[in-house]
């Protein structure tokens, strides 16, 4: 019964953890504009060369083109093909990265199909489940293994790899390997389906140890992931949409303007000799001092 409850707990923590992170990211202050072109929501003509609305005379008076489709395509390329890694990475990590990422995507797809098959009794999903599962385990395991070897063997990558990075890859590897073993002993995933059924029905039954271990590791991973940099797939929404692609200019009394006015009232406690100190950001901008005789000793 504990295993069944742990299954639910892991899903709850994962959803709550990801939600918590999203709320934390979204509630961070509105940063200054800091975009980098190409910005994919520009018109196709401009997007191709990385151009922007600022190429026009009197652009502030003209309608601004925004293409959600452009963003979706760009995001899709990154998620499904890791385009930038393929084009720019000098360490040949694209293939193993693709294998690892697709291993993860298919792992979640596999779990989703297992749930769907259980809840809706969709028989034709059986074959898809079998294929998705085994492809996920083979791709994921080989990707993780090659990345571990690459990080350990290449001096450049090794310098930037902390033990926790190896741990993360080994953690993922363990899920894929135990998944592969569970497939090896049960090619139709009958026991895996049973395990999922047990969780849904809150009615534990006996399944092979390899299957239990595979799901237990996956559940532990669900709990672990939201609190590590493995959550970069969520963070990157904010790095792109709130940073690199955020080209919105503000208008007086707009939502952005009100937010900026609020942030301009934040207190500045930087201790540099040219900072007046103890003033709001707006006051600091208005009340610069010419005399820098203030002590330059740091203060908190």
């Amino acid at each position, binding site marked *: 019964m504990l295993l069944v409850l742990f299954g639910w707990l892991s899903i709850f923590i994962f959803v709550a953890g990801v939600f918590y992170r999203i709320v934390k990211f979204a509630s961070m202050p509105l940063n200054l504009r800091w975009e980098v*072109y190409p910005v994919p929501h520009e018109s196709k003509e401009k997007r191709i060369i*990385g151009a922007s609305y600022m*190429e026009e005379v009197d652009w502030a008076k003209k309608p601004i083109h925004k293409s959600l489709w452009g963003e979706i395509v760009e995001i899709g390329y990154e998620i499904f093909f890791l385009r930038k890694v393929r084009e720019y990475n000098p360490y040949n990590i694209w293939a193993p990265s693709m294998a690892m990422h697709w291993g993860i995507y298919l792992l979640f797809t596999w779990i989703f199909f297992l749930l769907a098959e259980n809840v809706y009794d969709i028989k034709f999903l059986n074959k898809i489940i079998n294929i998705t599962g085994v492809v996920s385990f083979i791709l994921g395991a080989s990707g993780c293994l090659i990345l571990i070897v690459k990080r350990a063997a290449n001096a450049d990558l090794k*310098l*930037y*790899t902390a033990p926790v990075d190896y741990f993360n890859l080994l953690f993922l590897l363990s899920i894929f390997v135990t998944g592969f073993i569970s497939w090896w002993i049960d090619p139709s995933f009958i026991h895996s389906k049973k395990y999922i059924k047990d969780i849904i029905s809150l009615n534990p039954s006996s399944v092979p140890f390899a299957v239990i271990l595979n799901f237990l590791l996956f559940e532990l991973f669900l709990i672990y992931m939201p609190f590590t940099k493995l959550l970069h797939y969520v*963070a990157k929404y904010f790095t792109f949409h709130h940073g690199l692609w955020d080209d919105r200019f503000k208008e007086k009394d707009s939502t952005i303007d009100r937010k900026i006015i609020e942030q301009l009232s934040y207190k500045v406690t930087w201790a*540099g000799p040219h900072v007046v100190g103890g003033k709001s950001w707006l006051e600091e901008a208005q009340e610069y001092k010419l005399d820098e005789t203030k002590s330059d000793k740091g203060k908190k």
Partner: protein
Amino acid sequence: MNKKPNQFNDVSKLTEEPLVSYKTEDLMKLPYIDEEPPIEPPKEKWLENYDFSLDGHTDFDIPKPKSEDEKKNLVNRFLNGLEKLFDYQNNWTFGKIFKLSMDYCVGCQTCSEACHTYIASGRQEIYRPTFRSEILRRIYKRYFTKGGKYLKSFVGADVELNYKTVWRLLELSYRCNICRRCAQYCPVGIDNALIAREIRKLFSEEMGIAPSELLKKGTRQHIKTGSSTGMTTPAFKSLIEYIEEDIHERTGRKIKVPVDKKGADILLIHNAGEFLAWPDNPAAFAILFDAAGINYTLSSETFGYDSVNYGLWFDDVEAARIGLRHLKIAKELGVKKIVVGECGHAHKSFCVILDRMLPGEFSIPDIPRESCIPLMWEVVQSGRIKFNPERNNFPFTLHDSCNIVRLMGIVQPQRNILKAVCAKPLREMSPNGVKNYCCGGGSGFAIMNTLNFAQFRKKVSERMKVKQVLEVFNDVLNPDINKMVVTTCSNCKGAMRDAIGHYGLWNKYRILYTGLAEVIVNAMADIPPFLKWEFEE
């Protein structure tokens, strides 16, 4: 040569020996340059007082801390500042992108090959975009995260923090041009260039430490005198008179440059460095705008004749102060919009950064500001002026200013202009446009000349641009053929002047540089040619 520190803790070594040292032959090879001046070690007389322990270069003429108390104080102030970078009251401006960049880099090193400094240096590890970020990340984890405190080296929280670490980190933040090509390459959207900028900010806003050209002789001087050049209103006015006389002598036209004209349509604001170093550029604007019948004005108010805002490179407080005063001048003059002259970082300051740095009344629709380049393209294609492209019948290339192109997306109008006013086709560098390489003078480097910093700039940060320029002219290097590098930014022109002088590109290959306005005016059919084929260092 020592290319690779074995571990990040090497930055904490309590030694005066540079962490890396390299010779010219260790750097990226330059085509068509058989010989170049060697890399000189720092002068003996400097070594006692100043710190060269990163790579044998520095711009900081700040005496090294001597006593243990001074060293401890430096470390404590650094930690205070680091804490403030993560505090949203003190760092709402970039706190979000900074925090995400610190927490979610996956260490794939995809950004490395984007960096002209890293590649040109012969791939010295310390110049990799992630190197300085990783050191800061490891310090931050160790001192400010629970994971770092309890799990220490397991999570990479293992950099020893002493005054040498602090100082080398300061130096490292001034080995990046903040061109942000690395951010363009990152699959996760991590901005290592921003991290470099935030390190600079920590030192400036918390400790008052920044290159003297940027803070003391830069923003401080700008605020005190009205211009980072130290130019005062009377000096500006007399320069305008000089420019008017010069225009008359060279073109026969008597043009009155409008200054402080209330209610003009446009406030044109130049980088004040143009008036002193390249007066042909504001002169070309005056000729062009006069011929096009544009109702514009310059301003002689303090701040009104210098568009630069060095705060962009290292200090948000100073950036807001200067920006606010710039915009107030436009309000007082009652102009319909501000047009920024040929200065890359001023473009970004006016049109992008200031947008969210100041409250509603300074919003873009209330005080519109835009680049001069689309306006110049409008003038060129309007038919109001007759151009003779044969005047510009020489091989030329275009250097894209990072701020204008990669960071603002103004890519095509300058190309359209050159196509319209030049006889030969534009030779595009590889890469170009939004993927261009920085000139090597970006983020203040072009004006940083204290101690031996200029050597780093000439040898390393400008090196990639020199390679690109030589390659783009490879079939016309014959010194009988004059060649031109056109650029739309003062800083880039400064870097080009520097590189052309250092590598002898004018003497050997007759390669020169100029602004865009000068090329347009050179093609104006009803006045004599305007470009001067002379090189002045």
